[in-house]
Every structure is written in structure tokens, then in C-alpha cells.
């Protein structure tokens, strides 16, 4: 959908800058998550260090987005869809920042795991990571493209991620009983799985805000049937 430009060009520029900062932040969070998981799967401490280093820039972007948003509210007093876009962008950025925090947590745990012999159970993380990352990417796409259907689909996929996390927890807990020497390793994998499950929660929040921004509909705290 082509949105007509505002009569006031500086207003469009300010909205454009806000959107670009948000996209850059989401791109960095996605890269950080990717690096953290690859650091785990490839047992590469450098990738883990890079994932942790990304967090600093993402934190700065969160502050920049708040600043951009406040300035737009003060200077242009946006209304209607403009207001919803600005408010939603300001609500999105803390969720993206927390996705990056989860990437940092994963990278730190991966570094600990890398100090010990490899655990084949690390493969349990692969489908969970793929599901969480695709939810996160789609939630950002839904916001940027104002795609309400895609956003609703993201919300509906969170339950599957929760189930995958629970199943991995069960299997890893069983391994903890059988193989007590690797207790810490299995515990770190459980916590990594938990981090990815949290990424899904943040993607859900972003998707809910995407629906509000595009359609002025608040779908938070509704049953899945009502959302879909």
C-alpha cells in the first residue's frame, strides 16, 4: 500500500528516520541471535563474543528510538495512523532490545558449553531456534508491511514454540538423570531453550503491536481463537 506523503516534508523525514532506526535495530537483533546460536552449534567463541558485542549498539538504538518518538510527539502531534505507528514503534523497541538480551544470554551459555566436550543434545535447540527466529522475523515484517494477517499468524505460532520448549526440557531433564557428569551442560541447554521461548514471547508482543498500528485493534490478552 502506498501511503500518501504529508504536506509537511519534515514530518515524513522524522517518521522515516524512526522507521529506519527500528529496522536497523531489528536487523542487529536478528544477527546477534544468529551469531549466538551458530556460536553454540559450531562451538565458536568468536561468534559468541560478536553476539555479545552487538548488544551495545542495540541498546543505543533503543534510546535513539525513544528520542525520535518523543520528538515526533512533541513537534508534530501525530494523530490516527501516524500516532499508532509512533506509539507502536516506541513499544516495539524494548521488545527488540530484549530479544538481543536473550541472544547475549545464549552466547554466554554457549561459551560455557564450548569449554566442555560436545553434547549431541545440542541438536534439540536447532528446530526451536528456527521457529523462534522465523516468528521474530515475521513479526518485524508484519509491522513494516502493516500485514495484519501475518501478525495474527505469528501470535498463533507461539503455542507451538512453547510446546517445543517443553518437549526439549523433558528430554534434557531425563538426560540429566542418566548422565550426571554433564549436569551443567544440560542445564545450560534448558536455559538456552528457555531464552528462545522468550524470543517467541517478544515476537508475539511485536505482532500484537503490528496489528494495533495497522488496524487500530488491540488483540492483547485474548484467546487464540479470538485473535485468529
Amino acid at each position, binding site marked *: 500500500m502506498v501511503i500518501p506523503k*504529508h504536506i509537511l516534508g519534515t*514530518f515524513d523525514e522524522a517518521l522515516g528516520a524512526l522507521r529506519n532506526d527500528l529496522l536497523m535495530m531489528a536487523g542487529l537483533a536478528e544477527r546477534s541471535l544468529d551469531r549466538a546460536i551458530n556460536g553454540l552449534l559450531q562451538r565458536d567463541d568468536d561468534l559468541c563474543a560478536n553476539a555479545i558485542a552487538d548488544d551495545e549498539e542495540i541498546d543505543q538504538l533503543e534510546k535513539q528510538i525513544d528520542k525520535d518518538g518523543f520528538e515526533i510527539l512533541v513537534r508534530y*502531534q501525530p*494523530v*490516527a*495512523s501516524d500516532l499508532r505507528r509512533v506509539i507502536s514503534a516506541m513499544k516495539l523497541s524494548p521488545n527488540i532490545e530484549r530479544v538481543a538480551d536473550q541472544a547475549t544470554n545464549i552466547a554466554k551459555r554457549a561459551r560455557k558449553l564450548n569449554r566442555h566436550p560436545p553434547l549431541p543434545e545440542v541438536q534439540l535447540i536447532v528446530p526451536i531456534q528456527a521457529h523462534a527466529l522465523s516468528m521474530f522475523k515475521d513479526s518485524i515484517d508484519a509491522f513494516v508491511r502493516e500485514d495484519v494477517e501475518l501478525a495474527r499468524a505469528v501470535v498463533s505460532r507461539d503455542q507451538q514454540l512453547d510446546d517445543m520448549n517443553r518437549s526439549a526440557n523433558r528430554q534434557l531433564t531425563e538426560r540429566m538423570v542418566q548422565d550426571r557428569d554433564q549436569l551443567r551442560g544440560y542445564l545450560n541447554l534448558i536455559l538456552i531453550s528457555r531464552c528462545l521461548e522468550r524470543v517467541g514471547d517478544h515476537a508475539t508482543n511485536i505482532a500484537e503491536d503490528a496489528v494495533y498500528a495497522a488496524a487500530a485493534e488491540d488483540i492483547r490478552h485474548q484467546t487464540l481463537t479470538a485473535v485468529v
Partner: protein
Amino acid sequence: MAVQAKNVSMWYGAKRAVDNVTMDIPAKAVTAIIGPSGCGKSTFIRALNRMHELVPHTRVEGTVLLNGENLYSSDVDPAIVRRRVGMVFQKSNPFPTMSIGENVIVGLRLNGVRDRKFLNEHLEKSLRMAALWDEVKDDLHKSGTSLSGGQQQRLCIARALAVEPEVILMDEPCSALDPIATAKIEELIQDLKKHYTIVIVTHNMQQAGRVSDFTAFLYMGRLIEFGATTKIFTNPGQKQTEDYITGRFG
């Protein structure tokens, strides 16, 4: 509903300025009318108290009901209509030869009221309601034009209130005022709506958002959308409204 406009159309000579507007204006609430210059906002509210009849070559079709009573019935006196539906204009217009006090009670005098006690009571009551009493109570004999722009506008509101109208029409009441004087008028509007039905024409959309309960968007004489102000300013139902209020119109 305090005022019901039904299929109202208005012409200046051959030019149609208002096109078939139907609008229910709720009682004891503020209704803002927004729209670009020349969209018929001011013309439309003039139909609500027959003020347009003072302009030559104007014509109205449709009906306007005030509390169910047709203001255009042949047996209704337009002077009575204008007492029941008061008006405040863009530029404050106190009578320059009259004192502050005389400006307030002139409407009552023109209606034949001579009782000094009654006039004094209404003078104080109207100035208090217009939030001006404390500022002018010691200067009632001074000329109305000696006041500041914001005070003059509140004096005009007091003058409108003195004849105890049911509805107050305000045509860009703050467009010539500074932000502080504007804030005082906006605060006053919030007080007045407890007792009166208020219709305000404004070019300032932030003002419409701040003061009104309902907003009507007019474009090229037609009513595009009417609804709760919160709804209009967060999720308007019509694309034209959205494009106008977000500054994309043109």
C-alpha cells in the same frame, strides 16, 4: 440531542456552500467542526441560529431542530433564535462605545429588561461563568476595548451567556489569541459544557482534540464523518478524514 440538522443545504447566490448535511449535536457536550478553508464550517453553524439571514442572497434548505422545535418555522422570530443559540466570533467584538458592564447586559436591555437588581445579578453571574469576574470586577465602568484580546473574547462569551442561551456557537474563538489566552478559553469551554451545548469551529486540530467530545469533518460542503473525537483522532472511519487530520490532504 440538542440540535438536529436535517438535510441542510445553503447557497450564497448560485454557489452551494453546504451540501445536504445531516448532523445530530448532543446536548451538554462540545462538538468541534473541522475542515479546510471554504469547506462550509462557518456557513453551516450560521444556519444553526439563522445568522446567515443577515447576509444578502443566502438561502437555506432542510430543517434545524432545537430541542425538537423547528427553528425555520414561519412563526419563529429569528431574534429569539439568536438569543437561544448564542454566538462568539473569531475576532472579539465588544461594543467600543460601551463599558465592560454594559457590554455584558446589552442583550438583556435589548430584550426589554430594566430591573437594575436583575441586570446586576446577571452581569456578575455571566462574568463569573466566563471566568472574567475576578479580573474586571473593579473596572466594570471601563471601556470593553481596554481589555486584552483574550479578556475581550471572554467578555464576548459573557455577553452571549447573559441572555441564557441553550447553545453557544463559537467560530474560531481562539484564532487571534496567544497560547495562554487560548488555554483560558479552552478551560472555560470545559466549564461551560456542564450547562450548555457548545459547537466550535476550529482550524486547529489539536484544539479540537483537546476540547471536544465529538468531531465533525466537513469537506466541500459535505459532512464526511461525525463521531467521538477520540475515535476520529485515533482511527477515523473515512480515508478523507484520515488524510486531512494527518496533514496529507491536498
